[in-house]
């Protein structure tokens, strides 16, 4: 949807977050855990972006970065840049791409003047629009607009606060209305998420998981946000309750034109919820596409493996699946080149050396994999060379479910 009409809320570019590892004799800086390593994407009004990946791939960190709950190591996310600025940014980052490929210093060529100029211009724009350049007090109004719903409904509500206080606190922070008005607002909120005003006078521990999650949503809604990060909102809930919360989120989005970043490791839920999906592996986005596109035609071997690994609730359906070898490597010492090459079923010699570029290989379909060396092909062309090698895997992974569901 790069040419989508809806305005962009956030433009995240080359986000990096390294957590230092300290240790040794004088607790010196040994290295970094590269939780997020060069992630770029946009959030548009009223759309849901899915973010999937295994645990430890940096999904949650991305979410917290977007809200500036933690400061990034580098990179920007621009809040509502005007269209022309956005376009400009895109071109600038395109010129920078060859230089900011790997993120791990080694592979990048030295900067050209042009690139340097691009950097300066980006810097200038960042001063104006980037979240991370704002002072805390200038950040505050945005806090209301960008909100978050947490995974664990039990630790996300203060055990010693009444629901009423939990819900009115954001309003109090932003000095919205008088006390009585806030209480009235709280009652509306509770009604909106399908609880009743009586619940305001309870403590969190008196609620079931699903209800707590509703309260969490209500708190996020308190300041009429335009964008909510949903950090695994249903993974702590039961299936039968999960659907309630998901539907609630859908309804709210429809009513208020919210934008969601839907973080989850549960691909089927992501498919049910989101318009676009990003697949993350070890702190990098390996594939991005429209939901149906991604789930019907996964290009990246990891995506294919992930899809094929999902158990399907249907005993008749017998698929042969791509089994990945071993575990996710530690983000503290990510493999050289393509980070997936240690587990990749279609690994090539080049993979262990060069970090694959992040290219648009089909309309609105971005992949970082050496199997797809060229960028977007002419219209109507077949999938670029290299796909053949894993066609079978691709079929096995992606097509089988379709067959089953026909």
């Amino acid at each position, binding site marked *: 949807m790069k040419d989508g009409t809806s305005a962009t809320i956030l433009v995240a570019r080359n986000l990096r977050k390294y957590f230092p590892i300290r240790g040794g004799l004088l607790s010196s800086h040994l290295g970094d855990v590269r939780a997020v390593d060069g992630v770029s994407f946009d959030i548009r009004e009223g759309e849901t972006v899915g973010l999937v990946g295994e645990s430890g791939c940096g999904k949650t960190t991305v979410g917290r970065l977007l809200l500036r709950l933690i400061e990034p190591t580098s990179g920007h996310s621009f809040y509502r840049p005007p269209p022309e600025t956005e376009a400009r940014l895109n071109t600038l980052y395109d010129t920078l791409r060859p230089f900011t490929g790997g993120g791990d210093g080694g592979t990048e060529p030295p900067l050209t003047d042009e690139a340097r100029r691009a950097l300066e211009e980006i810097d200038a724009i960042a001063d104006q629009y980037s979240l991370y350049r704002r002072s805390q007090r200038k950040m505050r109004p945005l806090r209301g607009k960008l909100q978050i719903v947490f995974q664990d409904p039990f630790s996300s509500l203060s055990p010693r606060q009444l629901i009423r206080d939990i819900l009115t606190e954001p309003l109090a922070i932003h000095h919205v209305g008088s006390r009585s008005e806030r209480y009235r607002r709280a009652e509306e909120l509770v009604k909106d998420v399908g609880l009743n005003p009586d619940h305001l006078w309870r*403590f969190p521990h008196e609620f079931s998981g699903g*209800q707590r999650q509703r309260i969490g949503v209500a708190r996020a809604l308190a300041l009429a946000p335009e964008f909510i990060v949903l950090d695994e909102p249903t993974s702590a809930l039961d299936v039968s309750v999960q659907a309630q919360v998901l539907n609630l989120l859908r309804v709210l989005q429809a009513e208020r034109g919210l934008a969601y970043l839907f973080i989850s490791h549960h691909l089927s839920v992501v498919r049910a919820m989101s318009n676009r999906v990003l697949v993350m592996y070890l702190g990098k986005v390996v594939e991005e596409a429209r939901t149906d596109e991604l789930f019907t035609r996964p290009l990246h071997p990891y995506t294919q493996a992930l899809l094929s690994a999902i158990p399907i609730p249907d005993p008749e359906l017998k698929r042969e699946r791509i089994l990945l070898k071993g575990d996710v490597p530690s983000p503290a010492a990510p493999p050289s080149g393509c980070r997936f090459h240690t587990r990749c079923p279609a690994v090539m010699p080049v993979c262990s050396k060069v970090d694959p570029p992040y290219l648009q290989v089909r309309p609105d379909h971005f992949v970082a994999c050496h199997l797809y060396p060229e960028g977007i092909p002419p219209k109507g062309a077949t999938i670029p060379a290299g796909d053949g090698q894993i066609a079978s895997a691709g079929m096995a992974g992606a097509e089988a479910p379709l067959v089953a569901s026909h």
Partner: protein
Amino acid sequence: MESTGTTPAEESTTTKGRGRRPNPHVAQFLRTFYYLRRNGLAMFGLAVILILVGIALYALTLPIPTQSLAFYCGTNNQPSCVPGTQICTYPQGVVAPGPNCYQTPVSGGGVSSYPSIIAPTFDLAHFSGGPLPLGSLTVDPSHNAFFNLYDGLLRGSDWSLIISISIVLSGAAIGAIVGAVAGTFGGLIDEVLMRLVDIFLSIPAILFVIVIIAVLQVLPGFTSFDARIGLLVIGFVLVWWPFYARIVRGQVLVVREQKYVEAARACGAGKGRIIMRHILPNSVYPVFIQVSLDVGTIPLFVGTLVFLGFAVIPTTIGSGIFPEWGSITATSVIPLISLLTTCQFGQCIVPWWQFFFPGFALFMFAISVNFLSDGLRDALDPRLRR
């Protein structure tokens, strides 16, 4: 849209008794107390403490005893005392017929300058009242102030409570602030503060207090009794805050990572608000328990100091100020020990009641506080509740 509608099922799961509860916080407290009530020891402790507090309040209403109470010696059929000195001369080891006679050992100075008491048979009537009843006690070597143990216990109670509570509370206040600051800001501040805490904690508490008092008391202005009580309090507070600081910080480090704190940050709450509204309320309970424990411990430590020879007890009874229990106990133990070490076995009667009653009061106070705070810990610990 059935999914967003409260259903009877949800109601039945969550509502315990329909309708608005008057005040949920009260309900919360009642819940805690409900859990506490099951704990027999804790309730026992609570009862004892309430009684002691009652005694203390009652003692405040008592009239200030006059000096005359202290001056008494000898009743009929007893050898007369040398007037004005209140010393009855007895051959050592002879049991006195009457209740009220004192006898000082021959050797002067040192421990033995305290009177060792030759006791008549134990008798409650003497104990409770009388001009100079059995178990009377002097608090300084020059014998110009005796007081009734019963009175002492009665009037000492409020001092015990006042001293320990003031020490503990001020210590806890400092500790909480330091701990919260260290835990919340982290980084260098945390590092420095915690090193400081480590330093303080590595010096054994009692010894630290001893040193502080030993130094401070030579300074001008720490001579009067009130000043010395102040000295005591200062010394203890200086030593006590690190314990609380460590606890609070540990707790804060846990709470700080909780999602609701992050949610508050996401709503744009400032550091101050987060500390006051979220972190402290959720990390205060362990401190609360520790405080209640220490209230019971402090009098013991005061007693120890007195035992080691710090005169933090009043020498002028007339002022109406009585030593607190720790001091009374210690003061009564000292001559006892000298007695044990000097007199021949089987020949001296040990005035056990002298330190038994204050010691017992001390013990009861401390142990019931322990019971109570342990009960509180269980009642407030969610894991034990569920």
